[in-house]
C-alpha cells in the first residue's frame, strides 16, 4: 500500500510531457555504481494487516492504564481532557509546517502567542519562546545562553538536577571552552555552603531543579541571590504542574526558566515527544533560542501575528545564530495551550493541590511499614524519597511488585550509588486512594 495517487497511464503522460522516454532518464545523474542493489525492507501491508501488527506490538507492553504506577522522575502521568485530543487531531493543526507564511498561518501563530503568554504567566517570566525539544535540551540551551551572555567559562549544576538533564548538558558543551562543576547536596537539597565556595567571578550561571530530582523543594531564593552577587545568571528547571501551588521562577529572581511541559495535556509516550519550556527576561531577548510569535498589524491595520526577531535564527544568521534549532514542538505546544485554557488558574491550583495531598497520603501510608523510613526531611510537591532497611533491596522488591501490576518507587541506586537503599515515589491525580492502599497491603505481604 502506498499513498501516491498517480495511475500508470498518468505517469506515462507525465513522462511524455517532461520529454523523456522512461523514468530512468530522470535519474541518470545518479551513477550506476551507487545504485541500490537490494534491500531488506519487507513487503508492504494493507491497513488491516498493519493494524494487526501494531496492535500486537502494543499488546506486548503494559500500558500505564493497566497498572498502578508510582514512577515520575522527569516524566509524569497526568489526566488529559478529551477536548485536547479532539481539537489537536484536526488536520489543520496536525499537518501544517512552521508558519513562515504568516497570512496563511494565523491559527498557528496566534496559538503560539497565546502559549507564550501562558508560559510567561505560569513561570512569572517576562518572555517565553514557542518551545524547544524537551526539558533537557531547554536546560542545555539555557546553559549555552548563560555562557555566551556572560562570556564566563564556568557552569554550576547541582547534583540534584535530573541526571539525564546533566548528561544532555554535558553532551551539548563537549568540545566547548566551558567547565561544568557539580555542587553536592546535603539532606536532599543543594548544599548552600558548597555552593558559596564554588561561586566565583568566573561563574556564568547556576542551574537548579525545583522540585529537584529527589522531589525536594530547593532554597531557590537564597541560591538566586548568591548567584547574582557574583554576577552569574540563575537558571531554574521546574515542573510546570507544581506551579499551581509552588512559587514560580520569576518570584525568586530566575534569569532563565526551563521545564518539561509534556505533562500539560500530552501522554507520556515513553518519554517523547516532550515540550521544552524556555522563558527569560527582557534583557536576554536577543540571545533567546527558538521561534517567537509576535503581535503586529497587517496592511489594513488589523491585529495579526507573525514569526519575529528571526535574525537570531539559523535560517538567517547561519553559523552566528543563537541556536541551531529550526522547529519547535508545535503540536505538543498546542496541546499544552488547550490544556491550560481548559484548566484556568483555579483548575491548575486544584490539580496541583490534589497532587500534593495525594502524595502526602501515600507517603504517610507507606511510612506505616516498619522497614520504610523517610529518605530526607524536606518539603516536597508530589514526589518524595523513602529509605528501605538494609534487608530490603529496592530493585528486587520492584521486580516482585511489577509482577503484580505495580510500578513501585524508582530505585535511586543506579543514578546515585550512595543511595542504594533509597527510592523515589511519585503520586499524581491519576492515582486513586484504592490503588495506594492496595500497594501498601501488597508491600506488607511481600516483605
Amino acid at each position, binding site marked *: 500500500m502506498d499513498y501516491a495517487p498517480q495511475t500508470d497511464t498518468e505517469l506515462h503522460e507525465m513522462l511524455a510531457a517532461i520529454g523523456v522516454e522512461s523514468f530512468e532518464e530522470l535519474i541518470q545523474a*545518479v551513477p550506476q555504481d551507487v545504485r541500490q542493489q537490494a534491500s531488506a525492507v519487507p513487503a*508492504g501491508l494493507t491497513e488491516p494487516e498493519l493494524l494487526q501488527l501494531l496492535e500486537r506490538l502494543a499488546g506486548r507492553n503494559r500500558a500505564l492504564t493497566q497498572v498502578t504506577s508510582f514512577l515520575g522522575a522527569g516524566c509524569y502521568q497526568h489526566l488529559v481532557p478529551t477536548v485536547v485530543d479532539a481539537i489537536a487531531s484536526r488536520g489543520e493543526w496536525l499537518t501544517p509546517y512552521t508558519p513562515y507564511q504568516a497570512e*496563511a498561518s494565523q491559527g498557528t501563530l496566534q496559538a503560539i502567542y497565546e502559549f507564550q503568554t501562558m508560559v510567561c504567566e505560569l513561570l512569572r517570566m517576562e518572555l517565553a519562546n514557542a518551545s524547544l525539544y524537551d526539558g533537557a535540551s531547554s536546560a542545555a540551551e539555557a546553559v549555552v545562553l548563560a555562557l555566551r551572555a556572560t562570556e564566563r567559562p564556568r557552569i554550576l549544576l547541582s547534583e540534584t538536577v535530573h541526571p539525564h538533564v546533566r548528561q544532555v548538558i554535558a553532551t551539548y558543551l563537549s568540545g566547548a571552552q566551558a567547565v561544568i562543576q557539580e555542587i553536592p547536596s546535603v539532606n536532599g537539597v543543594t548544599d548552600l555552603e558548597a555552593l558559596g565556595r564554588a561561586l566565583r567571578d568566573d561563574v556564568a550561571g547556576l542551574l537548579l531543579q525545583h522540585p529537584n530530582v529527589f522531589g525536594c523543594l530547593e532554597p531557590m531564593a537564597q541560591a538566586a541571590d548568591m548567584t547574582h552577587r557574583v554576577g552569574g545568571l540563575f537558571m531554574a528547571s521546574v515542573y510546570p504542574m507544581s506551579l499551581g501551588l509552588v512559587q514560580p521562577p520569576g518570584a525568586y529572581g530566575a534569569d532563565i526558566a526551563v521545564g518539561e511541559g509534556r505533562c500539560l495535556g500530552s501522554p507520556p*509516550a515513553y518519554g*517523547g515527544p516532550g515540550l521544552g519550556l524556555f522563558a527569560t527576561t527582557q534583557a536576554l531577548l536577543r540571545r533567546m533560542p527558538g521561534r517567537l510569535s509576535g503581535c503586529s498589524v497587517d496592511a489594513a491595520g488589523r491585529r495579526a501575528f507573525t514569526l*519575529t*526577531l528571526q535574525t537570531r535564527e539559523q535560517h538567517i544568521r547561519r553559523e552566528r545564530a543563537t541556536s541551531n534549532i529550526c*522547529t519547535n514542538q508545535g503540536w505538543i505546544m498546542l496541546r499544552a495551550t488547550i490544556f491550560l*485554557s481548559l484548566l484556568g488558574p483555579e483548575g491548575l*491550583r486544584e490539580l496541583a493541590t490534589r497532587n500534593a495531598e495525594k502524595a502526602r497520603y501515600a507517603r504517610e501510608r507507606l511510612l506505616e511499614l516498619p522497614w520504610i523510613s523517610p529518605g530526607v526531611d524536606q518539603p516536597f510537591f508530589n514526589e518524595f524519597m523513602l529509605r528501605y532497611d538494609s534487608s530490603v533491596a529496592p530493585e528486587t522488591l520492584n521486580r516482585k511488585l511489577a509482577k503484580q501490576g505495580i510500578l513501585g518507587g524508582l530505585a535511586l541506586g543506579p543514578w546515585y550509588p550512595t543511595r542504594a537503599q533509597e527510592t523515589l515515589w511519585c503520586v499524581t491525580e491519576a492515582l486513586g486512594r484504592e490503588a495506594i492502599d492496595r500497594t501498601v497491603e501488597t508491600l506488607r505481604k511481600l516483605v
Partner: protein
Amino acid sequence: MAEPLIFERSVTGRRGWRLPPSDIARDTSSPPVPAEHLRRDPPALPEVAEFDVVRHYTRLSQQNFSVDTNFYPLGSCTMKYNPKLNERVAALPGFAWLHPLQPAEHVQGMLQLMHELEQLLCAITGMGAFTLQPAAGAQGELTGLKIIAAYHRRKRRRRSTILIPDSAHGTNPASAALSGFQVVQLKSGPNGLIDLTELKHKLTGDVAALMLTNPNTLGLFEREIRAICALLHERDALVYMDGANMNALLGIARPGDAGVDVLQLNLHKTFSTPHGGGGPGAGPVGVKASLEGFLPLPRVRQRGARFSWADQGRASVGRVHGFYGNVGMLVRAYAYIRTLGQEGLSRASRVAITNANYLKAKLHGVLSVPFDDPCLHEFVVSLKGLRAHGVSAGDVAKRLLDYGFYAPTVYFPLIVEEALMIEPTETESKQTLDAFVDALQRIVEEARTNPDVVRRAPQRMPVQRLDEVKAAREPNLRWSAPKSLAAHGSQ
C-alpha cells in the same frame, strides 16, 4: 473574521474542566507546602468554558493552511500526506501511555518496534547502525557533529573545520558552530554541484568533515559523491550527509553505499510523520558500522527474543534527549515504512521525482529555471525576470496563497536570485500540479499587466500582508490585560 485571543474570552469564575471529588481525607489545617514555597499570585490563565475552548481553537485552526487542506510545495520540507492510520496506532495506550522508566519486561513491544525501526533505517540507507534519540533534524546534525568531534578526539588530534557548500540549509552551519567548529564555505560550481577543485583547495589538514546535502537544495544529485568521499577519507576526514532530501533516494541509492560516514534522517519529511505546525520531528542518526560506539546512549539491545536498554559505552557522545527521543513519532514512521514496504518506498521516490520534473517542465517558459538538468524530488526557479515589473519572489509567494496554494520556500537556496524552491512530493495528483502551474501562469501574467495585485497580495486570507518591521522593532511577544481588566482579574 478575526478571532479574539483566548484571554479576551475570559470571564472570571468560568471553568472548562473539573477534577473528580477527592477520595482522601484532606488535612486543611496547613497548606500542603510551607508558606515560603507557596505561590502567592495565581497565573492569569484564561477562565473559559469547555465549549469556548472548542470553538476558539476550531476557529483558529480554520485560519491555517495545512497539508490536509492545501497543496504545500515547500521545498526541502517534504510536505507529503500524513496517513491517518499512523495517528491511530500511535495513540494506542500500549504506545502512548508508557513510562520511560518502566522495566524492560513491560515494554518488550516498544523496544522491539524501536529495534526494528533502527534495522529498517539501516536497510533503507545502507548505514551500519542508527540512534533514534535526536528530536529533530537539527538535533540530529548536532549529534552527528559530536560524533565527528569524538572520532578525531579518539585519534588524538585537533580538527576544527567543517566544510559546508553555500547551497546548504542554515541549520548546517549553525549546528557546526554550536558544536565548536569553524565553518568554511564551499562555493558551488556553475552546475550547482560541489566544485571538486574548490573542495581540494579548501581540504586542509584541519578539516574534520564535509557536510553535504544529497540531493542538494537545488534538487541535484552530487554525482561525484564517491570521489568526494574518497577525497575526504584520504585525509581521514569524515563525510556527513544531511538526509533532509532522502525522499528522492528511496530504492534508488543508499548513502552508506556511496561512502557517507554519518547521516541524519528527518522522519517528519521522508517518513510522513506530521509536521504539527513546527514539530515534533524526529532526526535519527545513522553511522557506518565502525562509528557505532560513538552513538548516544542508551541503545536498544536484542539478546535472543528479549530486548533491553544498554547504557554502557565509553566512546559514546552521551545523551541528547531526556529519554529516548520523540518515540510517538517513531511509532508513526515505523507504521509508514511497514505499510509501504520496499515496493511502496521505491514508488514514493519515483513518483516524487516524476512529479517534480513534470512541474519543472510545465513551468519552463513561464519562469526561469537556472539549473535545467533533470532534477530529483525538488527544483528551484528564479523570478529575477519579474523585477522589471517591480514584483519579487516574496510577492509571488503571497499571491499563491490567494489561489489556495501554500508558498514554496522563498529566497532559498541563497545562491539563486529571487528563488522559489518547489517540492511537490509523491502524494499530490497530476490534477493538483496542473492547477498549481495554472495559478503560477496567471500570477506571472498579473505581474506584467497588473503588478499591484501581486504586490498587495494576499487579499483573500484572514489577514493582509504583515508589518514585519513593526513586529521586530516593537516586540510584542505576550498579551497583557488592559489596565481596567487587570484590576478586575486580580480580585
